[in-house]
């Protein structure tokens, strides 16, 4: 059951001539559709939806934060059946557009809208800290120098979830290990990423986990430069292709699944099950996890250990910290 809001100001925006096909659209954040990260993953989810569910999909890249609202609004007003906003940066825009267009269906990734979710919005967030915890377990176990690194993009709360989850993982298996943390203050500076990685490795770290978008490309490059025994752990999607010989694992975040599943719910008339609330995807829901290529460079016993921890987390035996405060209380 999709609301067919009338299309009076379509302004050329297509309404879909086949009438039956559902229109799904997404608005990227300023990272753009090919960010090698969650925007791209979301688009992959939509593409899958197109193939499997037979829906029409469209995308609009945002150049500036100010463009979120009009981009979302244009889709919403042109009768799109479900409009996705990708990234927490547009949480306020989503809230606003949703309230102003109560008949529309809107989805957002990475934000629960501060808990106040309008009836027509489905939000999805991830427990990045849980996935990152497993990376911490891996790193803590595998480090030979007892030093590992974390490179963050910008110090957003979202990125801190990665940092503290990771640190907690390290601490759990190797309390004596040191974690060197550095932020590039940018998601798009590979040169800075390589500089940071270079110094962290030089400090004696042998494994670096990054959560820094394209900045992380530089981390991979530096690891490749340094060759054997300099490891990287990727983020968001399986990044082992960037440095097949130096990648231990990647903390994958299944934005694609989230987008696909919510779209599927709508298609199957189960919108009400996701609307007006936040869906949190953690290890339990397979919303986060480690990449299948992990086994390439990571010994089986470490993977087994990670799986053990995963079970404990899923079972609620371990509560993974996502903030500095929680981490300080974490033993």
């Amino acid at each position, binding site marked *: 059951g999709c609301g067919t809001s009338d299309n009076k100001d379509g302004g050329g925006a297509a309404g879909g001539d086949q009438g039956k096909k559902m229109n799904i659209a997404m608005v990227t954040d300023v990272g753009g559709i090919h960010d090698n990260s969650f925007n791209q993953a979301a688009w992959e989810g939509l593409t899958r939806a197109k193939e499997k569910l037979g829906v029409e999909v*469209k995308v609009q890249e945002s150049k500036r934060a*100010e463009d979120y609202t009009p981009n979302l609004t244009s889709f919403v007003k042109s009768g799109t059946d479900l409009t996705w906003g990708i990234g927490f940066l547009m949480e306020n825009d989503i809230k606003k557009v949703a309230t102003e267009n109560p008949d529309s269906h809107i989805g957002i990734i990475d934000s629960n809208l501060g808990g106040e979710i309008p009836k027509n919005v489905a939000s999805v967030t991830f427990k990045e800290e849980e996935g990152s915890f497993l990376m911490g377990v891996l790193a803590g176990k595998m480090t030979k120098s007892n030093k590992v690194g974390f490179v963050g993009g910008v110090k957003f709360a979202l990125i801190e979830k990665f940092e503290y989850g990771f640190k907690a993982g390290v601490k759990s298996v190797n309390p004596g290990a040191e974690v060197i943390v550095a932020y590039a203050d940018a998601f798009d500076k590979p040169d800075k990423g390589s500089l940071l990685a270079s110094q962290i490795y030089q400090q004696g770290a042998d494994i670096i986990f990054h959560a820094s978008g394209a900045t992380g490309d530089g981390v991979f490059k530096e690891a490749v430069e340094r060759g054997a025994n300099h490891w990287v752990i990727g983020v968001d999607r399986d990044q082992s292709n960037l440095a097949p010989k130096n990648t231990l694992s990647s903390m994958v975040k299944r934005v694609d699944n989230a987008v696909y599943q919510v779209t599927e719910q709508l298609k199957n008339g189960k919108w009400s099950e996701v609307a007006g609330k936040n869906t949190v995807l953690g290890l339990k829901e397979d919303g986060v996890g480690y990449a299948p290529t992990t086994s390439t460079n990571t010994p089986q016993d470490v993977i087994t250990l990670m799986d053990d921890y995963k079970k404990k987390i899923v079972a609620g035996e371990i509560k993974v910290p996502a903030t500095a405060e929680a981490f300080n209380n974490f033993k």
Partner: protein
Amino acid sequence: MNNSTSRWNAFLVPVIAVVLGILFGAVLMLLMGYDPILGYNLIFQGIFGSEYFLGETLRAVTPLIFAGLAVAFAFRTGLFNIGVEGQFIIGQLAAAWVGMSWDLPPGLHALAAVMVAMISSGLYAGFAGWLKARLGVHEVITTIMLNYIALFSANYIIRNFLKGQGERTADILPSASLTSEFLRTMFDGARVNWGLIIALILALVVWFLLWKTTRGYELRAVGFNPHASEYAGMNVKQNIILSMVISGMLAGAGGAADTLGVYGYMNISAGFTGIGFDGIAVALIGTNHPFGVILGALLFGGLSFGADNMQRVEGIPTESIRIVISMIIYFVAASAIVQSVLGYLRRRREVQAK
């Protein structure tokens, strides 16, 4: 008589450049395998297709007017302000701070926030002016550096002192808002706001200041010939600093309008918005004249915003419109030759008339 001809030229040259740029863009779209008529039609629709689009176009144009004015003002006084980007950030920040933490009656609060933003950005840019006037440090370098410093410090300040829910400052109080119910309803909910009116007023102020006041006479004289200005008793250093201050104030007003008019808060930002750099383009399309800047911003903002519709509907990449815009600027530059030939003919005619 010759003044009106030069005004006519100043108008004609960019118009020709725009036409050429758009033709160039059409050829480009053809080469890319898209229908240029459809493409431009979609852009047109994306601007004028509904009140909402039109309103949002104006919203997108607003910061470009501020940034363009800031750049143009500096250019007119012989300075190249690449630092509008950073000054804009400072303006956003100051406005957010005043907007969320002062307590004043509606209207007055907004005014205070805009003023504080202008003063902060003015001082920030004035620092570059001071370095130039006192120590001869090239303003191009300092303003580039100050952009980065503004970005990082704004993030720091928001994180540590102004943090609201999420990665941003707290909301400004409604009394500080520049949103306009009148404009909102007129444009079907678009976020066009009083900032646009402020921008237009400032364009008028800049024009008046530069060409109608003694201060403008000094500022331009110092830009053209500091030695003669010193001879004439003007305070060259003070004017250089003042020029940067005013340029920064214009940028700061833009930042304030953005915070108070569009969002009501300021985000922690992972990088530059590019407003400052777009402002350089806008100023140059507008031949550094305040009214030209308005037209330049309408063109630049309109094309960029309309281009989104092109991507939404037909998937035509928005880069093509960046290319069109760049070609327009290129033709503005190149058509200087037209201008100089026209100007020369005119001078000779005058000499003969004598």
